[in-house]
């Protein structure tokens, strides 16, 4: 079971997205999945949220200072005529239980069809379970991943990029601790083997933009079965 002890949440966030990624988020350059990871991180991390807000101010200044382009003669009238149109209703949000609402940041809640405990979890080997999320982007896999307490993800590297955001519990990787709110990005040069906390395991949002490459002889055997 994932620990949702609130005391864990008071540990300061140690791993933040690079400012270049915050800029890409603000400018709207990121794909939906990575934008989701950044939105979730910034929903937990005040410092990064403030950085995004400052970058949005730059975007605002660029609109204020953009050269105006003349609109069609009837543009305002067309919009005025639509002001009283009924607003399309927001899709009905599924009921999420208290644990899910505590653990899952707001931006990610909108992608869940049900609470964490009832998601369709698929076992991958003996240490992992994953539930895929319905996001756009071909070749990008977005999933919630649970690592069982004390277990490790097989040592692997990446053909593309891997992004992780810890939502509950924590893991250790190359001597560093990752806990709730911590964001990490790994590229193809990075081989790693995250090990979940012994006491509570770990729940992460994971995005892969290319298949994993497992290292070692067992990995070479399993690799053909791992597909994004």
């Amino acid at each position: 079971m994932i620990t949702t002890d609130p005391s864990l949440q008071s540990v300061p966030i140690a791993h933040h997205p690079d400012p270049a990624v915050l800029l890409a988020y603000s400018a709207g350059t990121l794909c939906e999945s990575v934008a989701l990871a950044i939105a979730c991180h910034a929903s937990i991390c005040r410092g990064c949220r403030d950085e995004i807000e400052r970058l949005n101010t730059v975007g605002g200044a660029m609109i204020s200072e953009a050269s105006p382009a003349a609109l069609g003669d009837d543009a305002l009238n067309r919009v005025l005529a639509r002001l009283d149109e009924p607003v399309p209703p927001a899709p009905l949000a599924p009921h999420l239980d208290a644990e899910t609402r505590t653990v899952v940041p707001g931006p990610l809640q909108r992608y869940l069809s049900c609470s964490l405990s009832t998601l369709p979890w698929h076992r991958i080997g003996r240490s992992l379970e994953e539930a895929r999320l319905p996001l756009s982007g071909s070749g990008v896999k977005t999933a919630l991943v649970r690592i069982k307490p004390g277990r490790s993800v097989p040592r692997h590297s990446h053909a593309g990029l891997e992004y992780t955001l810890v939502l509950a519990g924590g893991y250790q990787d190359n001597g560093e601790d990752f806990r709730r709110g911590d964001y990490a990005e790994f590229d193809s040069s990075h081989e790693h083997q995250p090990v979940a906390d012994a006491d509570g395991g770990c729940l992460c949002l994971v995005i892969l933009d290319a298949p994993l490459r497992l290292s070692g002889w067992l990995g070479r055997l399993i690799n053909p079965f791992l597909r994004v």
Partner: protein
Amino acid sequence: MFATALSAPFWPLPLHRRLGSIAERSKQLVARLGLTNEDLCELMEAIAARKDRQAFSQLFAFFAPRVKGFGIRRGVDPAAAEEIAQEALLAVWRKAETFDRTKASVATWVFTIVRNKHIDLFRRHAYPEVDIEELAETADDAAPADRALASAQDGSAVREAMRNLPAEQLLILQKAFYEDKSHRTIADELGLPLGTVKSRIRLALARMRGALPEAVHDHD
């Protein structure tokens, strides 16, 4: 730029407004030349409080041509840029109640709506937005002074800092916002190492945070 603003069509005014005082007319003229954030906030609040169409028309006259211009600068064809401008301003009307002048300037708020409309139109998905409600319950390690600066601003300090950015830092921000380019693409285009692009972004952010004196320049 003023010529374009002046040639914008007059919005339909009710009769008593059309016969309004010269002062009223000149106020409207000023409105189309330039509005302060304070003016824009008042228009937003008039829309939120009483669905004020006159206020909306003024806001439209200010923002719609700029939003269209921004779209064109981003490489969108004029027809689509105009569609985005209209959709964005319609969203401004519908979401007016969620605008909070203590959290952001009107231009900043409009920018996020415009950005999301661009993504809606071209990528057919909603852009995941930061949930600002969540932070109240979550501990974090941001410096209190930083926080006060961010929450109290109407963006003027950031805009001022932006005007004073070294050209090489501003260029990268412009490429991101106007050209929708990632830092990797920007690095390729400028023939710079990725690390240099990242460090310029970091320095620009530090300056907008007020963390760096004006005179400090980055070293490549």
